């Protein structure tokens, strides 16, 4: 990511008075992130059994921060059972040098040294009733333990959820908090990811929103989605909504498959947030993956809190006077 773009990004952070950091955010209409066990088939909706999120903590934050995970265990009502619950998920938090700036980190696939940085905390969860539908707290963390990325305006912590064994699906949420026992936002913080793996809301006509930020130099993007489970007759779909697009349709994938579509980015859309809107189909408990690449084949980050706010389509109205 280029430096100049991030200066603007920082400005947006300040302007929009960001208060993260429930992930997924309530506005996104996503209830849970999901990560399946290593042995789970991809048709369950997780292509690589790894989900990486980044948390940016502003330099002004001096008190400790905590990363809280809701329902980190595997079991109970929320998680996706596959046969019987036999899986384990590892949550690991990284900071320090190259936690974010290592090149392998900026990829949608977990390969190479994607676990770069200083491993600050980790825990493996399996079946654990005492953690079921409860918050587990990692930390406290000294903000300075993150990787200082000046262009991002703060310290970055990387959180990796990885399905280590089994074939069940772990559904969970994150919250970046200033308190160990309560969810209290960190002022000015934000979170982002390059690849979203989540469960679609089951309500009819519910719309899920993902907010990637389109950099200044991006002229086109390709959206890639996996295992949307599209079936003929489904009303569900993926559309792009932005200042210049009023729900431009994107391709949607079938079960255990990928779909890709390219979308040009107009000058008006550059340096703004666009809204990827996903309407679910008929399938219940539908987990899917989505990511976006720019024309350089580099991933575009989805921000929990949209930079600059959710986009509003600008209608072009043309007036003309008819001769009588």
């Amino acid at each position, binding site marked *: 990511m280029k430096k100049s773009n991030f200066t603007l990004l920082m400005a947006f952070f300040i302007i929009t008075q960001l208060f993260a950091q429930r992930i997924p955010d309530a506005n996104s209409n996503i209830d849970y992130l999901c990560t399946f066990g290593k042995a789970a088939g991809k048709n369950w909706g997780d292509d690589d059994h790894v989900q990486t999120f980044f948390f940016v903590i502003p330099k002004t934050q001096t008190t400790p921060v905590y990363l809280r995970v809701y329902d980190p265990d595997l079991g109970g009502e929320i998680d996706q059972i596959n046969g019987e619950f036999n899986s384990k998920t590892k949550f690991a938090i990284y900071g*320090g040098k190259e936690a974010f700036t290592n090149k392998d980190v900026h990829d949608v696939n977990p390969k190479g040294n994607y676990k770069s940085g*200083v491993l600050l*905390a980790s825990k493996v969860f399996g079946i654990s009733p005492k953690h079921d539908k409860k918050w587990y707290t990692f930390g406290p963390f*000294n903000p300075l333990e993150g990787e200082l990325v000046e262009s991002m305006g703060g310290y970055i912590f990387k959180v990796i959820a990885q399905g280590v064994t089994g074939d069940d699906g772990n559904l969970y949420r994150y919250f970046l908090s200033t308190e*160990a026992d309560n969810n209290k936002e960190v002022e000015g913080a934000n979170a982002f990811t390059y690849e979203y793996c989540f469960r679609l809301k089951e309500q009819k006509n519910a719309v899920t929103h993902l907010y990637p930020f389109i950099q200044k130099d991006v002229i086109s993007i390709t959206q890639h989605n996996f295992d949307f489970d599209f079936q003929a007759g489904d009303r569900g779909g993926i559309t792009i909504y932005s200042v210049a697009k009023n729900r431009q349709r994107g391709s949607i994938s079938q079960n255990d498959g990928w779909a890709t579509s390219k979308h040009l980015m107009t000058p008006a859309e550059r340096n703004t947030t666009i809204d990827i809107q996903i309407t679910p189909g008929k399938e219940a408990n539908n987990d899917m993956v989505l990511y976006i690449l720019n024309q350089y084949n580099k991933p575009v980050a989805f921000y929990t809190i949209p930079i600059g706010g959710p986009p509003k389509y600008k209608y072009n109205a043309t007036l003309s006077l008819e001769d009588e």
Partner: protein
Amino acid sequence: MNKYLLLFITVISSLSSWAISQTYKYNVFNSENGIAQNYIYSVVQDPRGYLWVGTGEGVSRYDGKDIKTYTKEDGLAENFITSIAVLDKGKVILGHFEGGISLYDGDYFSIVDTITIESKVIDFASYQGKHVYGLTSNTGIFLYKEDSIIIQKTPELQGRIAYNIIELNHEIFVATNEGLIHYKIENDHSLKFIKEFSKFEYVSISALTLKPNNKGFWIGTEEEGIFEYIIDEEGKGKVVEHPTPKLIRKFEVHEILEDKLGNLWIGTKLHGIYRLEYSKENTIKYVDIFTEDSDYPSNLVNTLFEDTEGNVWAGTYGDGLIQMIAKEFVFFNLNKKFKIGAVKSIVQTYDSTFYYGTDRGLYHGRINYHDTMYVFQKMKALEGQGIECLHTKKGDSILWIGTKNKGLHYYNLKADTTADTTHYLEVTDISSFDKVRVITEGENNTLWLSVATKGVYHIKKSGELIKHYDTRSGFLHNDIFDIFKDSKGRIWFTTHSAGLAFFHDGKMELLSQKGSFPIRDVNTVTEDKNGIIWIATEGSGVYSFDEKEFKGYTSESGLISNYCYSIITDDDNNVWIGHRSGISKIYIEQDSIVVFSEKNGLETTECLSQSICKDHRGHIWFGNSKGITKHDYNVEHHQGHAFPTYIADILLFSKKEDLSIYPLVEESNSAGVLGQYAEFPYKKNHFTFDFISVSLKKQNGIYYQYILDGYDKDWQKETKNNVANYTNLDPGVYTFKVKSSNNGKHWSEEVSYNFVIIKPFWERWWFFAAQILFLISVIFAVNRYSKSSNNKRLMRYLTFASVFIVFKFVNIIIEPLFRDLTGGIPIVKVFFNLVVAFCLLPAEKFIRKFAVANRNI
């Protein structure tokens, strides 16, 4: 807050009672008052006493007075310090967040390495004093040896987060988030993997601490409680579970510290500190809780450390560094709560409850297990009545109560608690309106009572009178202030005006009346462990009696006052005395006295007569006019302890210089070789000595004395100032000496610095000789080659010049010696110069005769 505790306090509050906590004083050090940052990762103390504090933005060094912070600008590899260890010779090694290693050699920082280690250096384990095993968070162990870093092969640690490393008997133990790993140190210092403890498979071991005697270590876990690794008599180690209180078990143990007194301090990640105190049978006796709910500054404990003075330091995560000083004295203001005007008597009964006899009735107090709360509660029994004295026999369930005007009562501690009533004991000739001043246990289940104006009654506990003693029957006085039974079975009586007496084998020994004991106004008596009797008097101090003689201690010896109202010996066999203006403590072995008053931490004084008690934990309780003052036995009191002194800095003309550039020379005198001295040129004659004796508890209570041998005649008067300045020193041999004390009585060993200021060349003897030779040469030259009148003047001038030079030379040599004798008085100096001049007169005459002989003058 614990919900049961809250409920308890709520209930208690509704029963006209009062709870008070906090017997510790907290000094918080944070970024606002000097510490580099509020995240504390490591705390250590070097041999000089300096406290080193590693933070996320530098390392701070505290000397008890000032904090100095060092960063990359001072030579550190990184600003983020994650671990510190002290090496031999006072060196300090520092580990950093990104794998850097720095070293402090006593003067300067240097970077050891910034490349080899790629992970946070989280802990060190010193080995044989010279080498250090460093533990990284994610990439295993390295060895620091002879200034180099050697990575150890520890594949077992890959993928884990390591927290602690310790060395024990040539073995290394590593705590990780997934178990406990054991290595052996080979001869070449490499590590050989031994095993993973199966007991802790996948258990997060969050704390590992060596025990003080190196006979094992403590193991703290995230959710499984605390364990001990114990080495048995055969030298084999085994893990046993420690009976962690349920209260603590659910918290993640982040740090464990066993202090010098054997208490166990448990620092939790998010829930404060718990201090476990053990009985002699090694069961947990008390738990002290330090959380934000009990006004402790922080719940986030990262590290715990005990310094050489016994203070515990808690490094927190975001709230700075907290120095926890156990309050030596804690004052409970019962006047404020209950309007009590005097606590006249204190006893602790068999069930550890305290009973207080006051001018407004009876109160009881209790310290609850699980917390530091002292709960005081008014009793209905004898409500509003003046209580003069309380007595209970050890292990007994009866509390005896002497009242101001209600006679003698007793209270059954087992049976009467519900009804909360006392029973009046009818004794012949003691009415229900009498003032019972003293109750003392006698032989064979009897009591000795002092009844105001009526003398002494010896009774059975049933109330049956054995004998009554008053002046009608020849007893020494009708108003007995104290009755004390000693280990020999003697019953001692104290009075005002009739002095001291004791009763033994049917005989009364009137010590004061016979003149054996010189004092007539005596308040109270006690006995120490060695059988020595201690007597507190009204206006004449304290006396000890060892069966041979009475030895007195007065305000001249150091007591705060000669009016001594209460006296007791503690578990260390020191004597405590209560006065109106404070408390005195006599250290019997050292024969020294220390006093406590409002000036040094005692909140309220005005101790009352005989209102003193030692509880089951060894604490001393003093009753006074406003409540109770408790002295905590566990607080190590270092009044008698001298701290080492160091010369921290030597400045020349107020500037720091590298003194190693000045050569060392061997100086000697007529007595022999004096030693090595640093040699300074004559221009470097302005010295400033900075010295320090580090006390982290009471730095402003340190006194210094210094002397500059070769300049000062005697030691300077003791001062708290730790800087000495000497300006315009003459050339000569000097030794600067300094020593320190924290009470003005016990002084540390002297430390010294030897130096010599060499003379300028023109003051050297050879220069004078050269001058004289030159002048003589000139005289001869002029004499030989010129016969004019001008030469006569020149001749005379040169003669006098050479004589003057000789005079000056002699003056410089002898004058310092003369000054030492006369003190440099000007008129004496003038007289001395005249003497020298007269001595040189013959020389002047000789030269003139010589000149005349040569017909030039």
